[in-house]
């Protein structure tokens, strides 16, 4: 039972989200699409994006899951503070993240100055892309896993522990399986976020074909750039939409499989 009037703004809202994508689909030059998608200008950024987003997601898992466990099992006060700190990059415009990373690791940055002395230069490398993606994507994973851990509570873990299970056995046999849906959702979300990352990458990693030009930067370059038609930007956008849809389908089926 909802007021009928709500359907009007609800449909406008839905249209606002969906109609622009439909507009993009209408603009696609389907005949020329295979050539555009098989060109070096499309395949190179796609490969780079998939590889960097994959590495970033692994880093998010390696660093984010322990962080989520620490937050979930801290005292409420510490947990609240840690959660707030983790959320900062999530609500921050990614461009600010890019400037922050440059301020730390740039040539004149706090840490970059010393890295420079030992011959390490992070900005404008593929490593910079990975760091930028991890920076913006990890909060998604931490929040998802931490939420799952909190909802789960510690009852089963404590029972297992009282039955004599080792701490690592409890983690592997009780904690991980129980947070699996949250872990999967968080992993997929952070992968999607890493794949779409633009702002921090543009400032911190630059826009060099084959090195730091990921899909979003390739779309920006194709649309704003030199001589390349905007058809290329549309084609690349279509590719990212396809990846996003595949990811959503994956979440849907995996979650159903885990829950059943």
């Amino acid at each position, binding site marked *: 039972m909802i007021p009928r009037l709500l359907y009007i703004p609800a449909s406008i809202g839905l249209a606002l989200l969906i109609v622009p994508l439909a507009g993009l689909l209408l603009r696609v030059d389907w005949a020329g699409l295979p050539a555009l998608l098989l060109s070096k200008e499309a395949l190179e950024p796609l490969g780079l994006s998939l590889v960097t987003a994959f590495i970033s997601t692994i880093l998010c898992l390696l660093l984010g899951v322990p962080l989520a466990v620490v937050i979930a099992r801290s005292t409420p006060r510490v947990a609240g503070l840690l959660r707030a700190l983790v959320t900062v990059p999530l609500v921050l415009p990614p461009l600010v993240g890019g400037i922050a990373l440059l301020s730390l690791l740039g040539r004149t940055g706090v840490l*970059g100055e010393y890295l420079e002395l030992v011959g390490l230069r992070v900005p*404008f490398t593929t490593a910079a892309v990975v760091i930028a993606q991890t920076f913006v994507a990890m909060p998604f994973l931490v929040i998802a896993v931490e939420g799952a851990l909190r909802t789960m509570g510690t009852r089963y873990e404590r029972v297992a522990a009282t039955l004599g299970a080792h701490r690592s056995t409890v983690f592997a046999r009780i904690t991980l399986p129980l947070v699996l849906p949250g872990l999967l959702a968080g992993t997929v979300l952070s992968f999607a976020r890493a794949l779409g990352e633009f702002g921090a990458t543009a400032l911190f990693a630059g826009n*060099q074909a084959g090195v730091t030009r990921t899909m979003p930067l390739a779309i920006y370059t194709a649309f*704003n750039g*030199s001589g390349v038609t905007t058809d290329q930007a549309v084609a690349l956008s279509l590719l990212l939409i396809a990846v996003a849809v595949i990811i959503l389908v994956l979440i849907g089926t995996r979650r159903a499989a885990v829950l059943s």
Partner: protein
Amino acid sequence: MNRFSQVSPRRRHHGVTAHHRFAPTAVVAASLALLAGCAAPTPASSPTAQAPQTLTIYAAASLSGVFDTLAAQLTTDNPSITVETNYDGSSTLVTQISEGAPADVFASADTRNMDALAADNLVGPSMLFASNTLRIAVAPGNPLGINTLSDLARPNVISVLCAPQVPCGTASATLLGNAGVTLSPASEEQSVTAVVTKVAEGIADAGLVYATDIAANPDRIEGVTPAGAADVVAHYPITIVSDSAHAAAAQAFIDLVLSPKGQSILAAAGFLAP
């Protein structure tokens, strides 16, 4: 959510695990090691004559087409050299180079951005190699009849300009100032190619771009020469970036650009002599 039921068990659990907490210093050390591992530098190729090497050219957006041609020419003349290019607004490139981007050659669309790098000793001495003037870019056929700079300020005309930091923006401001036209553009773009796109896509009705941009996009935009265009000339300097690991290859490219052959390629693209 069942918050209240969880608080007390978590506290008790916390009491059990307290002596096994993560050591924060170890975590920080591990993350730094990870960062360093990511950033392991690729071995720099030596600038010897025949060893294959990749020359990275950072050039003003307006040079994109013609520098692709010149880069191809360089590879034809020196098969051991492959060229990577990065075209963007000169001011964006200046920021990237001063933050340590691995450029070998830098070509700017004005001397001001070049001087900014030279002041910090980030580039060597530069040479002027071309010049350019502005045109009003309009849709093919000029449907709105835009013929003068003051037409850009008409209420029914959506105009876009380059941002004042980029060379085409500086030149546009001078041109408009000389003509006494004040204009609030619908958008200030970070490179001239972005202005070209906006007009070519019909997002904007008109914009100030270089004569060479009109020549490079004959089917997409049409050029109108505004009064006083010849008085506002953009000069293009080129130089080797101080940190370049491929100085010899960089010099070879600059020599090509300044050679009669390079100059004729630039002239064919509509660039004027320096």
